[in-house]
């Protein structure tokens, strides 16, 4: 059973002049538990739109999207929000740490929306996750006191603290220097593998993309599998 399946998914928007702009066209994709795939594309190719669809933040205008074999249209409103909180972790290019909150508070924030034991143990779980990303000594540091690499590690800890089954990373190294970016990606790849979560990295950086096992290119809204020396043709 695929964790995530897209069948002929398209996304278009109507422009003010009433013409239709097709951002994504007939996308087919299956993501299994433990997958690691990268999606590479230029600016304006539709990467963020695809990420929003994969993260259940947006709905396709055509085609069908299944999460755990449940069609997206059956997940409405609060149920979709709760599914997103429980099963999907986001990592953003600009880290998007909440200002004024310590690293510990930032990582504990997603657990505020949990309804299980994680809610009551959120501080301990957050501290453990920060330990895992090597920030055990920076629990009470504010974002402004952390370097870019440290901030992204906090963001990774925050994305993983609820034990998601799908991690969506949007240009995770876009705001970091090459060396720091490589270290952060290695960490992300490592932790995702350990937790068994699927990792989808959207990037324009070939080095980051190369860490994935399956590779895709998004060009003018069309998603195509890319062959690599190590993996051969993927689909």
């Amino acid at each position, binding site marked *: 059973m695929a964790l995530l399946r897209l069948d002929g998914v398209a996304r278009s928007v109507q422009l003010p002049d009433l013409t239709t702009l097709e951002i994504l066209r007939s996308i087919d994709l299956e993501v299994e538990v433990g997958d690691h795939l990268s999606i590479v594309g230029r600016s304006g190719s539709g990467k963020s739109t695809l990420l929003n669809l994969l993260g259940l933040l947006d709905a396709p205008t055509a085609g069908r999207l299944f999460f755990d074999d449940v069609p997206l249209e059956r997940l409405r409103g*609060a149920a979709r*929000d*709760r599914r997103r*909180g429980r099963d999907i972790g*986001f990592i953003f290019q600009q880290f998007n740490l909440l200002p*004024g909150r310590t690293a510990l508070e930032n990582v504990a924030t997603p657990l505020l*929306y949990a309804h*299980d034991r994680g809610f009551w143990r959120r501080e301990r779980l957050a501290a453990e996750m920060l330990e895992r990303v090597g920030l055990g000594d920076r629990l009470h540091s504010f974002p402004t006191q952390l370097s870019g690499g440290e901030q992204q590690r906090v963001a990774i800890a925050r994305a993983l603290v609820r034990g998601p089954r799908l991690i969506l990373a949007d240009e995770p190294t876009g705001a970091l220097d090459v060396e720091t970016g490589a270290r952060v990606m290695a960490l992300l790849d490592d932790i995702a593998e350990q937790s068994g979560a699927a990792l989808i990295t959207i990037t324009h950086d070939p080095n980051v993309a190369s860490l994935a096992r399956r590779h895709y290119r998004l060009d003018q809204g069309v998603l195509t599998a890319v062959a690599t020396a190590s993996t051969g043709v993927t689909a």
Partner: protein
Amino acid sequence: MRLVTGFVGAVVEAWTELRIHRTRVLLSLVGVGIAIAALTLVAALGGMVQQSQTETFERQSGRPALLSINAYNPTTGDAPDAATMRQAFAAAMERYGIDYSSRVSYGQWRIQLPDGVTDASVTAVDADYGTMHRVQLAQGRWFTDRDELRLAPAVIVNEYLWNRIGAPALASHPTLELPGDPGTTAVIVGVTPSPVYDEWPSLYVLETAYEARQAPGDQQLYGPPNYEAWVPPELADQLTGLVQADIGGSLGEGWEASVSRQDYLAWGGDYDPLLPLKLMVGGVAGLILLLGALGLLTISLVTVRYRIREIGIRRSFGATGGRVFFAVMMESVVATFVAGGVGVLAAVLLSRLDVVREYLLQGAQDTPPFPWEAVAIGLGSATVVGALAGLLPALVAVRVKVIDAIRL
């Protein structure tokens, strides 16, 4: 479980948000805190002023429900013989189990002061009158039944008269000479306070002592005593008819009894004489709170627009629209509740200042404690204002488009 974690989570979020933005929150809440303090204080002081006014009314016209009873001959207009009326009145009081009753007569006595003889107003009453009219004493005590047995009548003088005789200590059993035929000596057992405008000697004496000194023409001059009974307000209407019929019957043919309420609650039927005061107090408090709420609403609306990105991030973590709405609302409610608590505390402390209490209570006997209603009004208003002021920002927060917010 989901409800509990949802509620606790929203409160935790709200509290964290308030902690982080404490300067903004403090600034926005100064107005609310002051408004709540003012509202609570006004409500509490309103209660105190009301108590003071109520006691003043009760001193003047008796505590509710006070029945005024008299009898007359409709043909001649004459009053019945004092002894007959007293007997009929006493029988009626006993029959209906009325515990507090008093005769009231007004007259004048000649009294001997150090600088000569002068007239003093006399109010002759029974011992129950003190309770029925909340008679206030500056010194000494009110009459007891044992005072009826005194050969030298007990009197309670006003402060003006007491000062005229040199303000003697009551423990020394000061006396007052009553010249006449026969002359007698009264013992002062208490002193009633005199307002600044009270510049006439006056005293209370027990009705029995007053009657004993009455000259033959006095009843013609000053009229017969009035009779008063203090009954439960809910039984007043029923007892009015019963007592009237009872006394009329006891007096026999040719006599009619008249019983009517004279306490302040009966002055205008359902009219509440304190209503204007209550309306004024409520109006001022409402206006203060409205201004505080408007200030808070403005700041909350501006703030939520600065937080759109943060709200988007929270939605990406799984915060539902309802949860975002509730959390933003809770920020406002928690903040105003805390501000309300501080405001209420300030109001309690202010109201305890001696100068405030003395000014407002104007010597009321029953100093009311800080009314719980005022605390409830203060905290309740704070919560309602918080919810109302948080409503619009919460609606704005829910309408945030997650995708756009994250990209900001």
